[in-house]
């Protein structure tokens, strides 16, 4: 009814035509059905964890189709490798996935070490395991808070931050930073631990075990949360296989696939720990699995700190900043908090890398969202998105 258009007190010009979406909306709208609503969730939406954009086609509250749109946080990390020496590229790794930077450190440094045939001292291997597992715990804690926030509970994320800050305090002692850590060096780690690190870590393990009971009382047992998650977004092994999903999503589907045990690296084989699987392939299963993984990581940290061998933390002739990689190709993968973190490294023997391909687990994990979100309620789609544990910088790289 344009006849009501008698007053325009704020001088906002009225758009006469119907609004035409951008390239991706139009591209998506080509396949839209009759009488459906196309809705852009993001890139600035409270539940898309940064700058993910998801276009959904809604019929009422039900999602008919969904398509994630990436690229809002692309920073050309792979291209940057072609103009950086291996040494200069290590700090980039902390920026790829800010929640589990140590795993990316390990993937890059490990790939270079494999190519150059560098052996790492045993104490350094232990410290790598300790720092990586502590970092995995902090990543899972952050996910826990953010996931509950997606479901509408705002408070738990602040409780999770209490623990996360404790881990950051510990890791800051050796890495010097609280977020984008770069701790690993070719042939070892950058710094040895001090007494304070040992004391804080040993205090932290029983503390977190105690806190996990509170998590259970406040959130896990909560009837609202359980009914929001039970049976929502099942992702079976076949779906994971077709999309290349790894990590907690795959393990929740019942497959015991963990790079730490499948293709052993570091000194993981020296520790007794449980690789949890199941209990179910829905959102609740993934939720329970990640909490179980926190406990498994705590076991590893406890054992590693209990048997920390003496010795140097870096080999004597450690590569210096101008170090050149020998020519060759290698692929090295570690288990990140979100799945398999892989680095495909090709070197021509020059100063810089010839080509680095970063395999981000979140990239593959997100690609199955479109299929998993078909026909669910909008609120469930948000829950599924949250249960994938996305870190958009890692997806976009």
């Amino acid at each position: 009814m344009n006849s009501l258009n008698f007053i325009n007190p704020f001088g906002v010009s009225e758009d006469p035509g119907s609004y035409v979406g951008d390239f991706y909306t139009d591209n998506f709208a080509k396949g839209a059905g009759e009488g459906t609503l196309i809705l852009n969730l993001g890139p600035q939406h409270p539940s898309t964890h940064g700058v993910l954009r998801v276009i959904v086609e809604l019929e009422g509250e039900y999602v008919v189709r969904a398509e994630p749109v990436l690229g809002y946080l692309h920073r050309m990390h792979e291209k940057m490798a072609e103009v950086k020496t291996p040494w200069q590229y290590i700090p980039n790794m902390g920026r790829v996935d800010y929640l589990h930077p140590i795993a990316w450190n390990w993937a890059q440094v490990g790939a270079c070490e494999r190519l150059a045939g560098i052996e790492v001292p045993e104490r350094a291997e232990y410290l790598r395991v300790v720092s990586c597992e502590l970092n995995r715990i902090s990543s899972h804690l952050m996910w826990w808070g953010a996931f509950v926030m997606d479901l509408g509970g705002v408070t738990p994320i602040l409780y999770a931050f209490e623990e996360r800050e404790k881990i950051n305090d510990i890791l800051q002692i050796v890495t010097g930073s609280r977020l984008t850590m770069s701790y690993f060096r070719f042939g070892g780690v950058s710094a040895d631990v001090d007494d304070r690190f040992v004391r804080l870590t040993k205090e932290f393990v029983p503390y977190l075990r105690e806190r996990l009971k509170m998590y259970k009382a406040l959130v896990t047992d909560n009837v609202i949360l359980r009914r929001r998650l039970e049976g929502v977004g099942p992702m079976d092994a076949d779906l994971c296989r077709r999309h290349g999903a790894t990590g907690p999503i795959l393990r929740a589907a019942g497959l015991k696939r963990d790079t730490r045990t499948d293709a052993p690296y570091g000194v993981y084989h020296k520790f007794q720990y449980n690789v949890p699987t199941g209990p179910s392939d829905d959102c609740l299963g993934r939720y329970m699995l990640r909490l179980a993984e926190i406990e498994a990581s705590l076991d590893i940290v406890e054992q590693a700190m209990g048997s920390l061998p003496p010795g140097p933390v870096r080999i004597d002739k450690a590569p210096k900043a101008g170090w050149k990689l020998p020519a060759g190709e290698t692929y090295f993968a570690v288990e990140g908090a979100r799945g398999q973190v892989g680095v495909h490294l090709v070197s021509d023997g020059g100063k810089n890398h010839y080509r680095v391909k970063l395999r981000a687990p979140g990239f593959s994990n997100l690609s199955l969202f479109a299929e998993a979100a078909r026909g669910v309620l909008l609120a469930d789609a948000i829950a599924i998105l949250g249960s994938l544990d996305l870190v958009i910088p890692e997806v976009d790289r």
Partner: protein
Amino acid sequence: MDLSIANFAQIIIACLLVIALMVGNAVVMVYVERKACGFIQRRPGPYEVGPRGILQAVCDSMKLLGKQIYVPGNIDWILYFLAPVLAFFPVLLLYLPIPFGRHLTAMNVDEGILLILAFSGLGVVSNILAGWASNNKYGILGAARAVSQAVAYEIPMIMALLAIVFLTGSLSLTEIVERQGSWPWQWNIVVQPLAFFIYLVSLVGETNRAPFDLPEAESELTAGFHTEYSGMGFALFFLSEYANMLLVSFVCAAFFLGGYKGPFMDGFWWMFIKAYAVMVFIVWIRWTFPRVRFDQLLNINWRWLLPLSILNLWVTAVIVRFI
């Protein structure tokens, strides 16, 4: 009730007082909510403005007043600006029959609760207008949710209140309070615990508060029906949300918690203490629980609250009739 000059003046004064109460309540509740939320999350909440941040809410409202009103394109101008006003003003009327003392009522109507229930339905009209007029898909979804939620939760709410009305035999709030005693065991909550529980749940649903804040579910619909409102428009929605909360808390206090009667000395302060206790409880559950899903929200209502409230009503009717 004859509408003499004195009566008329009384209503005008009452209206002004109610406006003052609404604004004051919003200021207090913003502070209480942010402080409570802060303490639950183990942080201090606002503490920079004034001693212990007590002036924070004043600053917030100043900010809202001074903000540019940003209007999206292609809106329905009349409805867009009507919606916040429509959200705010009907609430004024609803306060008139609330008794703060035996004779301290703005308008002592015999059918007080009927008036409240009738006019509280207007609130949802403003929600749907806001969602529709602002030419926003999130708004439309939020408005659709608001309507089905409000329609659903009004029914068990009325049923729960009717049980008390059956017991008392009157629709007047003053009468209902008068029939209760001063001490907690003389209140209606003791004889009607189920009705109180049903009312408490539907109160949260009716005021769109977490965990039933589906119309403005932040993680799904950004802000639902008021996504496109800024400045004063948003402030009016905000004000009416808290005013609605206070109103249902007053009704809760009057119906179940003995109203202005309390131990040692009756008076309007008891009404306020009880109502604010209910509000703090609402705040508390907001910062504790995740949000329910929309179909679950309706399931809770249609499959549990409604049958329970009907059952409660029948049992009450039978007891009142035969015993």
